[in-house]
């Protein structure tokens, strides 16, 4: 981490420590990613992927799109908790969550440019030839609109950084409207990602196929969002500690306790609804098959267990347990999205015709995540994300006089 021994300017810090292990690894990943990009757009999807006529969607959809969108749900959950439900004590978590969500969605759209055949036509469904009967149309429309909403929600950080006071205040005035619009759009497309698979009941295993699919995807996205805020907060706390102000640090543990409580409730609701899904389609008997073992692992190991861990962690006020529960929940969401779109999809095909990603597909996914990480670090070390800009305090007025005196790195605010 180049930011650790920050001299007077961050730029100088980057230059001084250009050959850190972090930079070497990320540099290598980005280099490989660029080569694969070239390959993708000269040899076509066949040159890079293991996709086939039977398996048209691979890991770029399973991971980059489905997991990417679910794990970026922290944006709408946190901003709703703070601005709509009035839980002001979560205020310090909003900006990191919004930034993560914005970068997450931007990268989802970026990743789609690799996956679709003619990426320059991605605006077509919205602006040229809409197909409103398609669930994918709904997803595309909402992701497009929500990306714009997230951009607008993020602009205050950038405008404070640039010192554009007037514009920043205009944007802050729109906070409530943007938050509500964001929740509406998120509800729609998180659920619609599950609804994508409703059209293929003959291809998705009955344990995962349910008319509740959209509901499952939406509810689990809330748990994913809350858990990602905890997970990321823990990571940022470790690596970007020097960018955090008193206000963020003092609220940090409280945020994790509160979000842990929320996630516990959401996971329990999700667990019981999954059972109702089995009951409605009467698919209990599949639980005793191999796919049933996978389903039980997902439901018991990655939904029930983290729900319990969250509850214990909240009762004992043990942040360590809560952080482990967050990791389990995030892994569980990834497992669920993989199950629906990959492991349990096309289950009727013989094993030889099933999909397994090529190393190049995996490398492109890693490359895209790395780009996201680098962008996050670039922005979080420069803009007021983990701290409040001294000119734009939003903390409660009675705290203000103290906060002013104890701000950590006054020299890093000038840029």
């Amino acid at each position, binding site marked *: 981490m180049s930011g650790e021994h920050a001299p007077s300017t961050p730029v100088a810090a980057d230059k001084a420590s250009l050959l850190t292990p972090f930079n070497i690894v990320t540099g290598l990943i980005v280099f490989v990613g660029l080569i694969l990009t070239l390959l993708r757009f000269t040899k076509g999807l066949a040159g890079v992927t293991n996709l086939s006529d039977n398996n048209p969607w691979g890991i770029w959809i399973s991971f980059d799109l489905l997991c990417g969108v679910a794990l970026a749900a922290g944006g709408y959950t946190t901003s709703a908790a703070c601005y709509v439900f009035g839980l002001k004590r979560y205020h310090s978590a909003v900006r990191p969550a919004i930034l993560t969500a914005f970068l997450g969605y931007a990268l989802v759209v970026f990743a789609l440019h690799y996956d679709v055949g003619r990426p320059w036509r991605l605006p077509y469904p919205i602006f040229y030839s809409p197909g409103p009967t398609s669930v994918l149309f709904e997803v595309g*429309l909402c992701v497009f609109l929500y990306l714009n909403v997230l951009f607008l929600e993020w602009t205050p950080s950038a405008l404070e950084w640039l010192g554009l006071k007037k514009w920043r205040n205009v944007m802050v005035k729109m906070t409530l409207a943007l938050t509500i619009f964001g929740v509406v759009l998120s509800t729609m497309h998180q659920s619609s990602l599950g609804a994508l698979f409703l059209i293929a009941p003959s291809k998705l295993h009955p344990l995962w196929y349910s008319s509740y699919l959209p509901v499952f995807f939406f509810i689990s996205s809330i748990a994913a969002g809350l858990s990602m805020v905890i997970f990321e907060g823990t990571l940022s706390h470790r690596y970007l500690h020097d960018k955090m102000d008193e206000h963020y640090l003092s609220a940090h543990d409280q945020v994790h306790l509160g979000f842990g409580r929320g996630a516990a409730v959401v996971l329990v609701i999700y667990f019981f609804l999954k059972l109702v899904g089995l009951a409605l389609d009467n698919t209990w008997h599949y639980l005793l098959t191999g796919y049933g073992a996978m389903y039980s692992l997902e439901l018991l190991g990655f939904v029930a267990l983290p729900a319990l861990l969250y509850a214990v962690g909240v009762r004992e006020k043990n942040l360590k347990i809560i952080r482990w529960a967050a990791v389990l929940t995030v892994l569980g969401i990834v497992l669920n999205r993989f199950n629906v779109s990959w492991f349990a999809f096309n289950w009727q095909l013989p094993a030889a015709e099933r999909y397994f990603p090529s190393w190049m597909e995996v490398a492109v996914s890693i490359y895209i995540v790395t780009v996201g990480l680098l962008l996050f670090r670039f922005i979080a070390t420069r803009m007021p994300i983990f701290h409040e800009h001294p000119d734009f305090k939003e903390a409660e007025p009675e705290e203000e006089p103290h906060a002013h005196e104890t701000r950590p790195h006054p020299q890093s605010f000038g840029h």
Partner: protein
Amino acid sequence: MEFFTYHDFTMYTKGAAYVLMAVTLLGILGFWLFLTERDEDKLIK
């Protein structure tokens, strides 16, 4: 207008639903502003 397939029917009705959805969102916002216009402390100014 006559539809022979459910697909064509939904192409038409879902299209109308999307347009109405946009109208609904804007309409609710407008109605809310009208409703709360004379309130002393407004939620959305």
